């Protein structure tokens, strides 16, 4: 019984199987993930020299469409776009303009009329970028900068890039993701990337209240005991705990969370001696991670930020070149 299916066609790929939108790391073929990581390496070289620009996207317009406020992510996308010589327009579509009645699709249609090439979209509702991608013109490209708790693919990619930079071979690693997995788009994007690239053991660590139902189906092992979960890990990724999650039915307090799930040197010593510590930022020192670890020799948190610019340059230049 034929159905006008929206499941079989991957909305991220064009008819030639090339990346036209980046919406999620899930469903991206291995070759495309690697293409992005390899291109990012070249762009990393650009960010290290005096003239940090290349003329690749000159004349192209990148519209940052942030329905959910974020200075950090928006800034890195802006830097990445400018280093590609693209024109950048920032639109902080605050909640109030939404309540003025303009629908999401109307906003996009209006911007489309202004000759956008790339929309970088952050939205509080999971799936919003998919809705947008279904409605943009063929030459317009959507990059998901974070939708609800669903995906943050550029963060997932820069995390993969970071891991590859320090550990080289994905196929021998044990990776642990610690904290509020339930609400984390960063965790979901990283998990999909790790499993696609063949990481044999991916663990999530957190209290039952912060681990989503059926998460094993994503290919992870669940640990509630952090010490058990960190044993033998090569990579430890600490997730940010948002203020609104504490002091409620999910968690009693930040202090109690830190006691059980905060990363200290003592807990980290259970991981491998050359383990690296990552965090998508911004960090809550004393909640997810204590300062000695955050600033210590295992931490690669600052390099993550630099890699983030190269990765976003790679993503933008790849999608914008595929029609």
């Amino acid at each position, binding site marked *: 019984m034929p159905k006008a299916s*929206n499941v079989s066609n991957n909305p991220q790929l064009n008819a030639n199987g090339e990346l036209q939108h980046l919406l999620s790391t899930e469903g991206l073929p291995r070759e495309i993930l690697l293409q992005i990581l390899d291109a990012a390496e070249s762009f990393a070289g650009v960010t290290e020299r005096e003239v940090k620009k290349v003329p690749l996207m000159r004349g192209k317009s990148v519209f940052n469409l942030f329905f959910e406020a974020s200075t950090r992510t928006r800034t890195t996308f802006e830097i990445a776009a400018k280093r590609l010589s693209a024109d950048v327009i920032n639109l902080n579509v605050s909640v109030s303009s939404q309540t003025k009645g303009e629908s999401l699709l109307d906003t996009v249609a209006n911007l489309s009329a202004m000759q956008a090439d790339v929309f970088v979209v952050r939205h509080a*509702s999971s*799936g919003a970028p998919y809705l947008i991608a279904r409605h943009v013109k063929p030459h317009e490209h959507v990059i998901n900068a974070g939708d609800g708790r669903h995906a943050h693919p550029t963060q997932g990619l820069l995390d993969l890039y970071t891991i590859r930079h320090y550990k080289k071979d994905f196929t021998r690693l044990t990776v642990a993701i610690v904290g509020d997995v339930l609400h984390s788009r960063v965790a979901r994007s990283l998990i999909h990337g790790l499993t696609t690239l063949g990481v044999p053991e991916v663990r999530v660590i957190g209290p039952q209240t912060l681990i989503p*139902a059926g998460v094993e189906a994503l290919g992870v092992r669940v640990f509630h005991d952090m010490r058990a979960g960190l044993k033998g890990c090569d990579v430890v990724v600490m997730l940010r705990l948002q203020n609104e999650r504490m002091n409620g039915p999910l968690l009693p307090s930040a202090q109690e969370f830190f006691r059980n799930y905060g990363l200290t040197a003592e807990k980290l010593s259970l991981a491998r001696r050359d383990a690296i510590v990552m965090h998508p930022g911004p960090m809550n020192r004393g909640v997810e991670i204590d300062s000695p670890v955050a600033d210590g020799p295992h931490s690669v948190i600052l390099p993550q930020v630099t890699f983030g610019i190269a990765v976003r340059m790679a993503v933008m230049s790849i999608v914008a070149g595929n029609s």
Partner: protein
Amino acid sequence: MKLLIKGGRVVDPGSGRDEVADVFVADGKIASGKGKADQTLDAKGLVVAPGLIDLAARLREPGHGYKATLDTEMDAAVAGGVTSVACPPDTAPPLDEPGLVDMLRRRAKALSRARVYPVGALTVKLAGERLTEMSVLAHAGCVAFSQANVPITDTQVLWRALQYAATFGFPIWLRAEDKWLSREGVAHDGEVSTRLGLAGIPAFTETIALATMLQLARSTGARVHFCRLSTAAAVDMIRAAKKEKLPVTCDVGIQYVHLSEMDLGYYDSHCRLDPPLRSQRDREALAAGLADGTIDCAVSDHTPVDEDQKQLPFAEAEPGATGLELLLPLVLKWGAARKLPLAKTLARVTSDPARILGVQSGRIEPGAPADLVLFDPAQAWRVEAAALKSEGKNTPFLGYELAGCVRATIVAGRVVYERA
């Protein structure tokens, strides 16, 4: 007015009758014997069945005029072969006053298409605090009382409402849902909601409330009909309750025996439904429960939603699907998949809901109201906006080819719809 329906395959689910025969209608009723007919309908190659009885269809009046009107939705009903509709009380304002009920019945009667049976609000404004004047509302024409999709959170109020209704023998129709557990959720809590990053509604949201309601039904003796079962566990609980001979009945939305959480795909907001589409295991249990009679009947749960309210991110989209015109083909598809005889398939949308409503329609025998549908079970049609008469074009079945095409619908002996 005498009507002869000639040479069709007459299927009467109540008696199990399935044979090629003529049906004669006089004075709005099925008649025995014959006489000179004023009008003859050639039903060769068609099935002649009782008109469908749909226990849940939102006609969007009063209020909600921008979504649909009684006019368009009555057109949709008879185009779908539905001759009787029970509508939930969640209109705007809710059906908690006799004047509103009266107006609705008059409007429906004047349109002279399907019969409309209003279900009254159980509490004032559906707010779950004060009981409505059930006797007065029953007198105005309400066949039962319900909270639609607005659960009562104060169990004391729920208990007293059931007690009060039991006093007069009024049936209560309830959706089993624990409002606290479901309040943030938009999709079934499981693998798909985790993958899509959607807030989940666990299955026990239904079973916890159902356990409470069954216990209250047991102690009050109220006649309760449970609406829109969505979990395998709930089907088991109803089966046990019926074994215990509790006077309970239940229904399932016809979409739920066909679709599951897997159909959400890339956030298809046409699959944003209340209750949510659940796991494939749940779907299978619902389909089996409808077959073995644990679930008494299937409904369309017809809910027209403006397309603007669907072209939104999944969590923000308004839940609901249009369905009056899909009830027949979808129940036929379910029956065919389970290899049931046609009479048994059609029972779930004719004689069984008739029994729950307590009406005389839903059967083909002399003296019964002449509410009939003539349809071609083999003719397929494509579900698309242009093919639907309802204002609501929001259905997860858009693009599907379904078999089961209504050719004519008769209410009280009058042909109210004929396919061009």
